[in-house]
């Protein structure tokens, strides 16, 4: 926490923390408390009248079927993104850990989508699946399947999941590979001497030992899907069709900036904050455990 040895008292440390504290106060603490306050207000669309309504905005949200459907969509979306990108990354990491030659080259070839902005990723996938032009939708129609994510909610969901998961594979791959490489070789050798083949070893030794990494990545991926996929949604589906991909973050933006329902949007922000805090706490508990381990 603090060095045993440190500099004597002076005004200097205050000057040193000053910039960060100012930025934190002005752009974090103040807006966050504003969000809390606004979530208790009811404002008309022109901003002429505001009324303090306590938890009415929250009550409305709870009784709003659209909000619940957005909630459900977010959960499904996050689960699918996490599952798809993690399982794909895990399989690749296990193979990459096996091959001695070229695992560095594979790493280089696999990690670049991390650098791609969500919007750019969305643009690539929307181009490939463009109902009239896209290469993959063309291939699908040749197989007798007419793809149109602009009309079909399920297809829209599948597309945003693929685009979001594609971008996250790199991250998961790096962590899985690092986790695999930190498993002591002697354990694998001991299992081999016990007569376990490669597949058995993977399931009996490697996956259980990898579970801390897996849990950590699960939390990270859920946070990613909750908050960082805004760009993908905005570009690929804009929450549609008919709200089929309207995840919570997108709804906050839409209700606040497009619908100008400030109180409702603020109440949604507050709920999101609670979710983030919950996830952060889980992550920190896990980090503590990992330290003890």
């Amino acid at each position, binding site marked *: 926490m603090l060095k045993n040895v440190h*500099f004597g*008292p002076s005004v200097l440390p205050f000057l040193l923390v000053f910039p*960060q504290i100012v930025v934190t106060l002005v752009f*974090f603490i103040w*807006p966050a408390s504003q969000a809390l306050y606004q979530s208790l207000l009811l404002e008309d669309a022109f901003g002429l009248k505001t009324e303090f309504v306590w938890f009415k905005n929250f009550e409305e949200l709870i009784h709003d079927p659209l909000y619940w459907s957005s909630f459900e969509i977010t959960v499904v979306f996050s689960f699918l993104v996490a599952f798809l990108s993690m399982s794909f990354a895990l399989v690749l990491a296990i193979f990459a850990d096996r091959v001695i030659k070229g695992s560095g080259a594979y790493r280089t070839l*696999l990690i670049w989508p991390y650098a791609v902005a969500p919007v750019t990723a969305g643009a*690539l996938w929307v181009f490939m699946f463009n109902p009239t032009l896209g*290469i993959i939708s063309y291939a699908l129609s040749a197989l007798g399947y007419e793809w149109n994510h602009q009309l079909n909610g399920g297809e829209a969901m599948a597309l945003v999941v693929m685009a979001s998961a594609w971008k996250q594979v790199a991250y998961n791959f*790096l962590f899985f590979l690092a986790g695999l490489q930190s498993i002591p070789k002697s354990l694998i050798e001991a299992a081999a001497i016990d007569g376990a083949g490669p597949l058995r070893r993977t399931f009996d030794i490697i996956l259980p030992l990898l579970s801390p990494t897996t849990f950590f990545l699960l939390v990270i991926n859920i946070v990613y899907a909750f908050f960082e996929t805004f760009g993908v949604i905005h570009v690929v589906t804009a929450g549609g069709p008919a709200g089929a991909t309207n995840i919570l973050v997108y709804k906050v933006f839409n209700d606040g900036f497009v619908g100008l329902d400030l109180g409702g949007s603020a109440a949604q922000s507050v709920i999101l904050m609670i979710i983030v805090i919950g996830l952060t706490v889980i992550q920190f508990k896990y980090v503590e455990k990992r330290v003890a381990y």
Partner: protein
Amino acid sequence: MVENRPLLTIFSHIMLLFGVAVIALPIWIMFVAASHPEIRMTQVPLPMLPGGYFFENLDIALNRGMSGMDGNGVAYMMLNSLIMAMMIAVGKIAISLLSAFAIVYFRFPFRMFFFWMIFVTLMLPVEVRILPTYEVVANLGMLDSYWGLSIPLIASATATFMFRQVFLTIPDEMLEAARIDGAGPMRFFWDILIPMSRTNIAALFVILFIYGWNQYLWPLLITSEPGMYTVVMGIKQMLEAAEQVPQWNVIMMTALLAMLPPIFVVIFMQSLFVKGLTETEK
């Protein structure tokens, strides 16, 4: 590996190549589309092999933009993105280094209070406090400015934590030796602490540059003047225009341009990038 199974090794390579193909497919298709003339982009099926129109498209994208738009191209947007990413990365590193230095190396009143104040920002991603933050920036008159684009994204608990961690691993004797050599706090900071944290600073810079370059929602909200748009926003704009005039060749060239700087950083500074990722996510 433990035992020699050539077939399994070959199978592993096949699976990995398959994985690389899946990951690389969208990027390949983008590259191909960026190398064909506009007319080819309207004929189904679209090409799978590169054409000879790459540099023409590059010129259109950079200098002229899509027909039907303002005719300025995306070169200036690239510059905006670069300025924003640099400001975010440098700004975050600077204020985090200073505050971590204060928190680790000084005992002063409200130290823990400041520490927790910084800590809570870890829990507040920009997306969840977006509306009131927008209002603050608007009230400060920072809309449509580089300051408005970067400063609200600058405060970062993760960077402060990482530097705190790095400083804690530097032996106490370094400070004692420096004090005997007569170095005061700021001299110690510049001459000893910063050079000793060099690789961590570089690793963090790589991560923050990518983070800054890829920002979307925030620039989308606070810029209304086209002169302040970033290249990532430019893609979205073109996609909207594409509903009428599908110029996929230009859109994909823009996407290619938008991902080049961060990909360049990831591939050529791979070890720093990996270090940065694993160290900030703790």
